[in-house]
């Protein structure tokens, strides 16, 4: 499997390390159900068979965190974005929603 880092270009997966589901978002500790929300945040994961967003770290390259959209059945990669850009987009849409 090869991942196209938005900064470095296409590299072998030996240069990357995997963290897991990129869709989980840290809950607000001030929310009334914070305790349950943090339990879900820390432990509950979906076992996706198909395309999912994953966090990968370009450890042996540029040290950027990436959000990779990958089909877990075929390893086909649909999109790779900088995790920072994804986080900023999320902040923006969260801000717009309020």
């Amino acid at each position: 499997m090869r991942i196209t880092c938005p900064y470095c270009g296409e590299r072998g997966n030996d240069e990357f390390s995997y963290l897991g589901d990129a869709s989980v978002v840290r809950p607000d500790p001030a929310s009334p159900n914070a305790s349950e929300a943090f339990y879900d945040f820390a432990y509950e994961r979906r076992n996706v068979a198909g395309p999912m967003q994953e966090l990968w770290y370009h450890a042996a390259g540029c040290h950027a965190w990436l959000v990779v959209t990958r089909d877990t059945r075929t390893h086909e990669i649909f999109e790779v974005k900088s995790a920072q850009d994804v986080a900023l987009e999320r902040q923006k849409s969260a801000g717009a929603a309020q």
Partner: protein
Amino acid sequence: MSDIANGLVAEKDLAISEQADLAVTHVTARRGAKAALDDASRTAFGTTLPSGPRVVNAGGLMIVWAGPDQWLFIEQAKGGVDSSNALGKTFQGLASVVDVSDSRTIFRVATSRAPEKLVRRMGIDFDEGAFNPGDVAITHVSHLGAMVWRLPDGSGYDFACARTYSRDFLDWLRKA
């Protein structure tokens, strides 16, 4: 310190030399300061900072992309001049500036074209036409982290690694 420190290690077809007496500074842009950094760099060095994996030669000062919003500034050390300190002043408030001269070793392979053996030992596409003069890659070789760039004038390749394993790295390079 033996042959490494002595500089030149002559190989059959590869001239490998350790670049001695370099001032190497790692610069990381503060959040959102890239545009202001580019302005400061243009004023001081006549060039903006590469925003992707490229190296520019600003009159002997090499500015090497070292990851998103990060660069290595490399120049020959001048007696009595603290290059990193000067860079810190140039980029005051815009970047974190760290002197890494003692933690990096840079080997130069003086060849206009990487030999086939070296191309094959790299994990990245290092072919002529894929890795061009001025290109930079951060990668690893035999589990050792390394940066490589092709000199903008096409006269050679520079390899940077952590000084701690420069001996192992040189070993790898010699076998190529």
